[in-house]
């Protein structure tokens, strides 16, 4: 049995030469549809259970089965859970990509491969481990047709052995993964054990990377952003969900269906919600608007192409003033783009989605915690401001597994906004739908079904006056649009405030949002440790921009706005808001490759622009 394919060289780190503990990235290259998702999750969980901060990122094809897919697990003792550019340990399961994957590694990395691939012949500056998977899996899995699915679990055992992950934790993770399927759990456990035992007996550990037990994950949960958002929406009191399947948003609603079926059934056994799969995104948002108009807390989830289709309706909601929540799980555009890759590319189009002077409120969650907590906020804002609220998540956040503290139960009450009841109408005698009674630009509305002769009003996307009557008068149009603007200005004081982290006497400011946050926080440490460059950091959480954003720009000589698109969309949006003399302080670090933004790319670009 060939276990030492390459003669270990000093530079690649022999045993005891160098020890890197709890800081590595493992990439597993497989074929989609081969059951690799379960194996990857088990490996991720095993490391998590060892108390080591961990994150998992799936890079998958837009395909059902048979195309290459890569899963990257990053374990990091400092809690950096953004993407790391370099791969330290490659698990090469896919013959199609094995050569290229191996060739792209930095010297010193380790490769675990299926014996017949003979990857060790490719390079002499890597550490190679080979495993006869088919032989091992045949021994534990008598049913030939299941072998393909179980084969991947073998590598989990091998990796556990090589990286010193405890087998007991692997077993626990497998039991959790196959909680309801005892037979599958046993079969997978046998496969993992076979890998573990094989490695123990036949492979000599030569890499520098070790997982050692620590205590940084106690009490934490692992969840993806879409599931977190689904939970948040359930606790937000959402009652109507409409959707059209589109990657990467589908799992948000699919998970929500599961949760709602379990936890939102009334005492009579009937649902306190309606979830409808619409015929397209136009219908999905039309239903959201109809439901919001009639008083439901309604939402849909979509991605860029859906957002484009929703454009006309978005303007209707803005102008008729109907609440609704739209989750945009951003993926790479233009057009179909890269449907299974991440981006922050819908910022500008969503801010002004629709024709005419339409402006929309947007929220920017950066974490699974915020996917959860921003859901009730979004519904409250939508009903308070009688407008659509777009929650701008992305594929990296929505579909990948993230470690997090458990979510806190929402303490902010459900706020249904300015809705007049029958009793209110008895008292008032009547109302003017679009009259700015309170000076905040927000009118009072009634819901259909309010039994009062003065309850009804006429909602229309055409020109209207305060009383919701049809009007083409110039003054009516202008007054109404000015009021809508006043309402948007009011929103500045109500949307989530940015999160500001100060450096030590920093002259430079970084502004970021959404998942760029993870690369930015790690990059700030790199800038400090490697370049002695102090930075302050403002993380945007909403549009319209609040006062703090303007102040932050005023307080810094240079502002680097980091985002995941080509055209510096957020920077462009911010420029429109800032005093002209401040706009020259803005510099763009805009990256889009479809992969989550990594710290090193930010550090390199920022230091180069700083002349370092």
């Amino acid at each position, binding site marked *: 049995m060939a276990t030492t394919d390459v003669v270990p060289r000093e530079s690649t780190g022999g045993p005891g030469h160098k020890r890197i503990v709890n800081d590595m990235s493992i990439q597993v290259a497989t074929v989609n549809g081969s059951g690799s998702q379960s194996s990857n999750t088990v490996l991720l969980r095993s490391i998590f259970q060892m108390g080591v901060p961990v994150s998992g990122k799936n890079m998958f094809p837009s395909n059902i089965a048979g195309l290459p897919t890569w899963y990257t697990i990053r374990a990091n003792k400092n809690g950096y859970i953004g993407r790391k550019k370099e791969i330290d340990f490659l698990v090469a399961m896919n013959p199609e990509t094995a050569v290229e994957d191996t060739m792209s590694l930095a010297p010193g990395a380790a490769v675990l491969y299926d014996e017949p691939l003979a990857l060790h012949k490719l390079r002499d500056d890597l550490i190679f481990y080979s495993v006869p998977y088919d032989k091992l899996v045949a021994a534990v899995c008598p049913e030939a047709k299941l072998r393909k699915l179980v084969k991947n679990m073998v590598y989990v055992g091998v990796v556990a052995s090589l990286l010193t992950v405890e087998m007991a934790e692997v077993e626990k993770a497998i039991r959790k993964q196959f909680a309801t399927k005892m037979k599958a759990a046993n079969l997978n456990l046998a496969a993992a054990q076979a890998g573990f035992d094989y490695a123990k007996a036949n492979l000599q550990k030569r890499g520098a990377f070790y997982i050692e037990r620590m205590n940084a994950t106690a009490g934490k949960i692992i969840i993806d952003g879409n599931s977190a958002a689904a939970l948040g929406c359930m606790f937000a009191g959402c009652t109507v969900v409409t959707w059209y399947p589109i990657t990467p948003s589908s799992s948000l609603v699919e998970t929500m269906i599961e949760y709602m079926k379990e936890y939102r059934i009334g005492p009579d056994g009937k649902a306190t919600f309606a979830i409808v799969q619409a015929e397209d995104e136009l219908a999905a948002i039309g239903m959201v608007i109809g439901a919001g108009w009639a008083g439901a807390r309604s939402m849909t989830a979509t991605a860029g192409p859906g957002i484009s289709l929703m454009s006309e309706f978005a303007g209707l909601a803005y102008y008729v003033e109907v609440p609704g929540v739209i989750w945009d799980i951003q993926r790479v555009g233009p057009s179909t783009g890269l449907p299974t890759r991440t981006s922050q590319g819908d910022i500008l189009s969503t801010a002004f989605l629709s024709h005419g002077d339409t402006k929309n409120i947007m929220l920017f969650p950066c974490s699974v915690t915020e996917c959860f907590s921003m859901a009730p906020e979004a519904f409250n804002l939508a009903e308070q401001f009688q407008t659509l609220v777009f929650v701008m998540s992305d594929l990296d956040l929505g579909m990948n597994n993230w470690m997090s503290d458990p979510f806190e139960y929402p303490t902010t009450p459900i706020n249904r906004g300015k809705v007049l009841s029958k009793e209110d109408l008895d008292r008032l005698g009547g109302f003017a739908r679009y009259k700015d009674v309170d000076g905040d630009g927000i009118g009072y509305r009634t819901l259909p079904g309010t039994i009062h002769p003065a309850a009804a009003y006429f909602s229309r*996307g055409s020109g209207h006056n305060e009383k919701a009557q049809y009007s083409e008068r110039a003054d009516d149009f202008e007054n109404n649009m000015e009021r809508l603007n006043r309402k948007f200005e009011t929103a500045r004081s109500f949307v989530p405030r940015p999160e500001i982290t100060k450096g030590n006497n920093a002259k430079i400011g970084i502004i970021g949002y959404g998942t760029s946050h993870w690369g930015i926080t790690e990059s700030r440490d790199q800038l400090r440790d490697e370049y002695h460059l102090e930075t302050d950091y403002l993380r945007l959480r909403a549009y319209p921009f609040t006062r703090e954003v303007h102040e932050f720009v005023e307080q810094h000589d240079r502002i680097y706005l980091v985002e995941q698109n080509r055209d510096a969309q957020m920077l462009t949006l911010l420029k429109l808001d800032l005093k002209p003399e401040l706009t020259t302080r803005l510099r763009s670090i805009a990256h889009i490759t479809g992969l989550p933004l990594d710290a090193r790319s930010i550090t390199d670009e920022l230091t180069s622009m700083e002349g370092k």
Partner: protein
Amino acid sequence: MGTTTVEPGAATPGPKTNRIGLTVMDYKGGKTTLCAGCGHNAISERIIESMYEMGVQPELLIKPSGIGCSSKTPAYFMSRSHSFNAVHGRMPSVATGAMLANRKLVCIGVSGDGDTASIGIGQFVHLMRRNLPIIYIIEDNGVYGLTKGQFSATADLGSKLKSGVLNDLPPIDTCALAIQLGATLVGRSFSGDKRQLGAMLKAAIAHKGTVMLDVVSPCVTFNDHEGSTKSYKYVKEHEETLQDVSFVPHFEDIDVEYDPGTTTEVTMHDGSRLRLRKLEEDYDPTDKIRAITRLTEAHDKGEVLTGVFYVNPEAPNFIDMLNVVDQPLATLPDSMTRPGKEVLDAVMEELR
């Protein structure tokens, strides 16, 4: 007609009221801005009458519409009901959302032939297949009025525009489509036929499912000339009526004898009865295939076929299929829409 007179409480006799004590004035809308003689205005009048006579609570009615002359009409009837003049061709989704939010509402969606059969055909077909409780009316004149007289997709083959242009594409028969897709009360009427349209509207109000009424409604400005197949003259000369339609509401105990040999009686969901006295032998309004065959024949013969083509009061409607609570979702108390802390704790525990 189906109204009951309430004894006036005062010494002077009050106006006539319906079964919920409202006068017909309580069902009126704003002044129409459509052309004098427009068929749509007659339809609005029939809606007012039938809603009044059926005693529909105006505040429980919603009137979504799309864009076009037809879609303006909700402003001209029932001002005590909420209206939503939405975007072109997308009324069905707005109506669906509203009905999801509040299942107690009665919905009359007003559309036109352009709004339905061209830009709105996608949402139309999906509305039909859901059997949502809605009365969907197409005020069908075969042309785009607001953009000054272009053909719509219901214009008949060979029909002529004012400018002399001939339509060289076949029409979409919205009734045949609705029947095939799953609507459960489908008929065609004529804006000028007070009696038939009134009876069909009342049956529509009694029905708990998707009602699709295509009402031929001539455009006096752009499509009432010689050569048009949607003119008053053409419709009067070519109308073939399937049945004599009458309606007995559930709250009336009048029982007029009828001959089961010549009349089909359909008991509606609320106990009302729709009576169809056959003018054509062997027409069975519960037979989908026969309905579509007869509609196809009518096209071939150049007939304007009217009547109730298909009815099925038993099919489950969309709201029932979703198994939602009886109260409107829109106004459920927070205690029913925000699960308790123990639920979150349990979910978090599973994710550890």
